[in-house]
């Protein structure tokens, strides 16, 4: 029986989550779901960072994760404010219908 | 490994049972205290002095019709009380109730218990304080989902107000928690309490380069808002005609929200006790006789109860008060027994301090009027958050200056 979890399993999980995020980003049409797929991708990358930090036994990977989280928070705040404004002006959340700069 | 699991399961069962009973009786305490503030007896008839009232309430809530309205979003409607009560109860797993318990080799008939020691805590995480903050952050989901899934304007409004209030007050609360952590220099709850050992002068509220009185006040105010208590209970009381976010809930699901609120009150009181008031440490060292204080208090209470029982003002009191008097005197005797003193006295101080803060919660509820919602939000963003930040800056500066 395995004494611990092989590192490659963590990286595979990160790849799976990342590709699911990419799939959601490309195939969904609700703008909020697209935004959530971006957050999913960021989470997958965070898992990767922490895994490599374990591999090299350094704490720097944790710090990168921390900064990614902070930037994701800032991005979520501004992105959702933009989504609110877009909804106020276009009354739709379907990205196929928000396709011209004209009102 | 197996003994650790068995021990933890036993401790978890004990803590859970005590917590559930405390939740039920906390409601009795609240009703009695508010009643006496308003010069009326409170629950009085169900059992002696209403002590069986929580049992009656539990029976009522369980046997009520468990209605799921047809117009609600069923998944989230059923998920919301589950989230609320789970996140409220999970914080109890990192709270230390007393020092390390040493159980010596004991022979009870054929059963031989070897010597072992275990902490009076379910688990001592290195990041215990952050764990409790995380659990209270996740508690917001229960309320937001409850209001949204109920498909009811007033419930949604109450839920949005309550969630916005909770996340706004998380900020000054986190800063007020960070300040004594700067003084005590650890995130683990057990080490936090152990760093406040000594006398009352080494509790975080009075000790250190900067006594944490302002942090204590800011933490208390923020925890009133976090638990949706008066004076910040607009989300659940303004719509009291329609009860805010738990309008469409009945029976056990409503009871879950209710229990979640009381569990949150207990959690923040315990946090303020551990962070500021020294946890289970006595106000003066045991060498000067602080081990006799519980016995003196219970003995005094027993004598007073016996006196009032013998000169009863109301007829029913002549049966009940002598019984209480005898019970209190027996408890006073238990506190004098040497084998249990090592763990019972710290537990007494822990419960006494937490109980004082809970009494303050109930006292404020009976006394103060409530804030309007915009006053509430303006208070946190314009006054409380800058005050908490300033407090943390001053604490950090003084700690850095006096530490080499």
């Amino acid at each position: 029986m395995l004494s611990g979890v092989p590192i490659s399993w963590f990286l595979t999980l990160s790849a799976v989550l990342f590709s699911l995020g990419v799939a959601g980003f490309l195939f969904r049409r609700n703008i909020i779901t697209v935004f959530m797929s971006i957050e999913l991708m960021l989470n997958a990358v965070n898992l990767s960072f922490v895994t490599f930090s374990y591999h090299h036994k350094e704490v720097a990977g944790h710090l990168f994760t921390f900064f990614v989280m902070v930037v994701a928070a800032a991005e979520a705040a501004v992105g959702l404010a933009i989504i609110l404004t877009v909804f106020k002006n276009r009354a739709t959340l379907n990205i196929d219908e928000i396709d011209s700069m004209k009102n | 490994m197996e003994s650790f699991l068995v021990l933890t399961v036993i401790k978890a069962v004990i803590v859970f049972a005590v917590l559930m009973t405390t939740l039920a009786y906390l409601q009795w305490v609240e009703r009695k205290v508010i009643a006496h503030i308003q010069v009326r007896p409170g629950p009085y008839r169900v059992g002696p002095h209403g002590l069986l009232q929580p049992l009656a309430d539990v029976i009522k809530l369980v046997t009520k019709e468990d209605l799921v309205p047809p117009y609600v979003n069923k998944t989230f409607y059923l998920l919301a009380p589950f989230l609320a009560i789970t996140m409220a109860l999970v914080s109890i797993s990192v709270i230390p109730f007393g020092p390390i318990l040493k159980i010596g080799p004991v022979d009870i008939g054929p059963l031989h218990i070897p010597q072992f020691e275990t902490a009076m805590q379910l688990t001592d995480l290195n990041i215990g304080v952050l764990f409790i903050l995380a659990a209270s952050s996740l508690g917001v989901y229960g309320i937001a989902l409850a209001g949204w899934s109920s498909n009811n304007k007033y419930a949604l409004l109450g839920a949005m107000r309550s969630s916005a209030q909770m996340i706004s007050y998380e900020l000054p609360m986190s800063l007020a928690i960070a300040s004594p952590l700067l003084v005590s220099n650890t995130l683990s709850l057990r080490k936090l309490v152990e760093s406040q050992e000594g006398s009352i002068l080494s509790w975080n509220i009075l000790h250190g380069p900067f006594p944490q009185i302002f942090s204590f006040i800011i933490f208390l105010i923020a925890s009133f808002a976090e638990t949706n208590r008066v004076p910040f209970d607009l989300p659940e009381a303004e719509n009291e005609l329609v009860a805010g976010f738990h309008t469409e809930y009945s029976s056990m699901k409503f009871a879950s929200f209710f229990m979640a609120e009381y569990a949150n009150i207990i959690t923040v009181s315990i946090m303020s006790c551990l962070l500021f008031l020294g946890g289970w440490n006595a106000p003066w060292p045991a060498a000067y006789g602080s081990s006799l204080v519980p016995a003196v208090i219970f003995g005094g209470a027993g004598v007073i109860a016996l006196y009032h029982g013998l000169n009863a003002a109301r007829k029913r009191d002549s049966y009940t008060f002598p019984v209480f008097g005898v019970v209190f005197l027996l408890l006073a005797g238990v506190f004098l027994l040497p084998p249990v003193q090592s763990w019972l006295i710290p537990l007494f101080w822990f419960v006494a301090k937490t109980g004082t803060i809970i009494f303050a919660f109930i006292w404020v509820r009976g006394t103060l009027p409530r804030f309007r919602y915009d006053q509430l939000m303006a208070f946190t963003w314009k006054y409380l958050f800058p005050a908490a930040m300033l407090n943390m800056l001053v604490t950090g500066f003084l700690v850095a200056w006096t530490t080499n």
Partner: protein
Amino acid sequence: MDVILFLIFAAAAVVCAVNVVVQTHPISSALSLVGVMGSLAVLYLLLGAEFIAAAQVIVYAGAIMVLFVFVIMLLNAGAESRKGRSFMVQFLGVPLLVFFLAIAAYFVQRMFPDSTTVRFGGFTGGGAEAVGRALFTTYLLPFEVTSILILIAIVGAIVLARKELD
């Protein structure tokens, strides 16, 4: 024991992630994303990243996702309608994804041939003290820059979302 925990929470993360992408109503996607973040927090604990696990739950699952849930409730976004998928998306989407994943997994397996194993207690330098020390000494400049970034984000969000004073 560690393997069992990893498998349970990795499976939970993947199921919740699939749910994020597949569900039509944004609220279900948001709550599934909270599930993903919770499972990832447990996996961070397995990797010895205690502070990051707590920060993940407090910041990501407890604040950012609450913001998402608020916006979804405010906008009252209904369920998305399923119509008009192009042929390529419908029939080539999932197989392409699986193919890409297989390539990624193969390369990952080649580069890390089961040498390092992750177990509880394998890395103890992830506690709050180590992270704090590194944050305030080696990585002080990024820390200060991100604090300014958050300030800019706050001002930007307020400006974008306020009512026009016409």
